[in-house]
């Protein structure tokens, strides 16, 4: 519909810079990871490291594939993308509510549901594409720097990781709708994510930890997608989104 | 044609328009056959409500001062009946004020006569 096109265009135009910066940051991380592998290993090998260290180093660094997966999905990509998801989500409603643009838009024949849907979709798509594009850059850099084929297996975790990112984006969107201040929305979202991750250190609860989920261990080990995890994430995202939608419908401007 | 509209007067704007048209006809600055601006034109140029202008024009037509020809516009009417008596608006003000001050007709006539003739009238002389 014409309205959706116009609103989508607005969202993408507004977040041009944010998108470029996100891609830039993630690309830098993606490029550095394969390149650093040899460098880090060499550095550690040259150091006078105690026995236990040497074992860990050999195990971790020895297997490039584990190194890649562990650092990309277990750490660098995941932590950074989670923060980006929160930054993208913090102002989604709160900023335009504060500066009056929201009231201006809603005085025209646009439904609140459509407005939120377009904003959310734009953000979710941007974040997912950033995640995918940077992963592809990782693969390309790995292939170019090591010359031993493209590590396609890395992509196995992407669907799950992307869903976690979208879920955290939905969480931040909810806070952006409930709270008037963008910074408060960011802090609330950050706080919630940290708490959930911390709880995830308790063994039986690890399935709720975003970082755990983003590392998609089942997908790595079995080569197949963890359908239960994916379904769970979809349900959580839907619940968060629909709560935000409900809050927006009742909001007084 | 420029109209002087003073919105803060108690006199409604439509009457102000009517009076200025009548005044123009009285003084001869508006002659039979002259075209008045269209409702939209006058509303926009004087920055007043088009409904107000329309009302003024309707009233002027009822008083026989103008006539509207469809498609052509509103024109000052021809014929002597379009020449209104002078000083009507000023007399209206005088009568309103007199009414407010509680001055009766006889008293009012006496005041006017005295002012016009510039000296006490016969009836006053008799009183003294």
């Amino acid at each position, binding site marked *: 519909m*014409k*309205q959706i*096109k*116009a*609103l989508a*265009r*607005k969202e993408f*135009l*507004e977040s041009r810079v944010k998108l470029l910066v996100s891609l830039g940051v993630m690309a830098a991380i993606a490029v550095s990871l394969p390149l650093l592998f040899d460098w880090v290993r060499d550095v550690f090998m040259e150091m006078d490291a105690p026995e236990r260290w040497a074992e860990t180093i050999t195990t971790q660094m020895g297997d490039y594939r584990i190194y890649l997966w562990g650092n990309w999905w277990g750490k660098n990509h995941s932590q950074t993308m989670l923060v980006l998801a929160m930054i993208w989500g913090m102002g989604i409603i709160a900023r335009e509510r504060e*500066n*009056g*643009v929201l*009231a*201006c*838009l*809603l*005085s*025209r*024949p*646009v*439904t609140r549901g459509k407005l939120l849907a377009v904003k959310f979709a734009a953000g979710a798509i941007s974040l997912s594409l950033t995640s995918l594009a940077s992963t592809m850059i990782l693969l390309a850099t790995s292939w170019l720097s090591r010359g031993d084929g493209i590590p396609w297996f890395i992509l196995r975790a992407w669907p799950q990781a992307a869903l976690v990112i979208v879920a955290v984006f939905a969480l931040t969107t909810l806070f952006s709708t409930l709270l008037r201040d963008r910074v408060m929305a960011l802090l609330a979202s950050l706080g919630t994510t940290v708490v959930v991750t911390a709880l995830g250190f308790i063994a039986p609860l690890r399935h709720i930890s975003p970082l755990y989920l983003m590392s998609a261990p089942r997908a790595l080990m079995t080569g197949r997608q963890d359908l239960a995890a994916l379904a769970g994430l979809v349900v959580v995202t839907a619940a968060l989104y629909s709560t935000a939608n409900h809050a927006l419908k009742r909001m*007084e*401007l | 044609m420029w109209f002087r*509209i003073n*919105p*803060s*007067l*108690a006199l*409604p*704007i439509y009457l102000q328009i009517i009076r200025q048209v009548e005044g123009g006809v009285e003084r001869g600055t508006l002659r039979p056959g002259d075209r008045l601006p269209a*409702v*939209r034109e006058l*509303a*926009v*140029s004087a*920055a*007043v*409500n*088009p*409904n*107000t202008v329309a009302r003024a024009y309707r009233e002027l037509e009822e008083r026989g001062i103008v006539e509207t020809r469809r498609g052509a516009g509103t024109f000052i009417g021809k014929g002597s009946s379009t020449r209104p008596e002078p000083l009507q608006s000023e007399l209206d003000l005088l009568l309103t004020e007199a009414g*407010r*001050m*509680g001055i009766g007709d006889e008293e009012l006539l006496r005041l006017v006569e005295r002012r016009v003739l510039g000296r006490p009238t016969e009836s006053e002389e008799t009183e003294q």
Partner: protein
Amino acid sequence: MTDRAAIEAVDVHKSFGEVKALSGLTFRVERGSITALLGPNGAGKTTAIRLMLNLAAQDRGSLSVLGMDTRQHSLLIRRRVGYVPENRAFTPGFTVKRVLELFQGISETWDKELQNRLLSDFNLPPTRKVRELSRGMTGQLALILALSPRPDLLILDEPVSGLDPVMRREFMRNILAEVADRGQTVLLSSHNLSEVERTADTVVLMNHGKAILTGSMEHIKNTEKKVRVAPQGGLPPEVENHPAVISVRSEGRAFLLTVSGDTEDLLAQIHRHNPFAVEVLDLSLEDIFLARSEGDKQ
């Protein structure tokens, strides 16, 4: 009877937490009229407007715009209403052109010719960024956005604030042209009483969340007066307690009465006591506004 009205409010109440913004607001705006919505700050004018557009919902009472209930048919209403808000906010980084394109995209109807004519009349540069526009220019842009969809009802909230007298006049002229051409209804909430007095045919004066005075401009100016009386003795009780008298103030040996309603009967009562002097003072819209807004406090 309701379908003749462009806006009809019946006993509307609205609170925001502790603050009661509207307490039984009742008024009508007739189609094709230019109605002024006046009142001191905090009277509830902006709240009333927000309810019309369903940006917020009333606690109690009914409110309909163009014959449709504001809560049930909000989308339909917003298709036919043009709104110039007091707080004119646009995406700061956008150019004028982009803002116009966005609003065109979200509106059902759009008269591009009218948009372009207004753009050139106002001399708004399409490539200028919104954050670089003066307050007056954002007002002009807001008017273009409100008029281009050719709405049946135009709601303006402090539209000319920030505009110099020339721009103000130009602004009003464009609105008057639309009223003349299409019989558009206009609800104008403005502190700029001189423009209001020229153009409005109906007045709704609000204070403390209610309409304290409504009627045609002509009627209001006929019934709201001040009367200065210098009585022989003190002020007679039939005069002081007359239903038309709103307030009394002493000025040395005379009394200044603020009067609303049947002035003729009051004057008859006054003359019965043979006062030294009686003076009836016509009031401008501003005088009426001040008298009624201050008078309320007593």
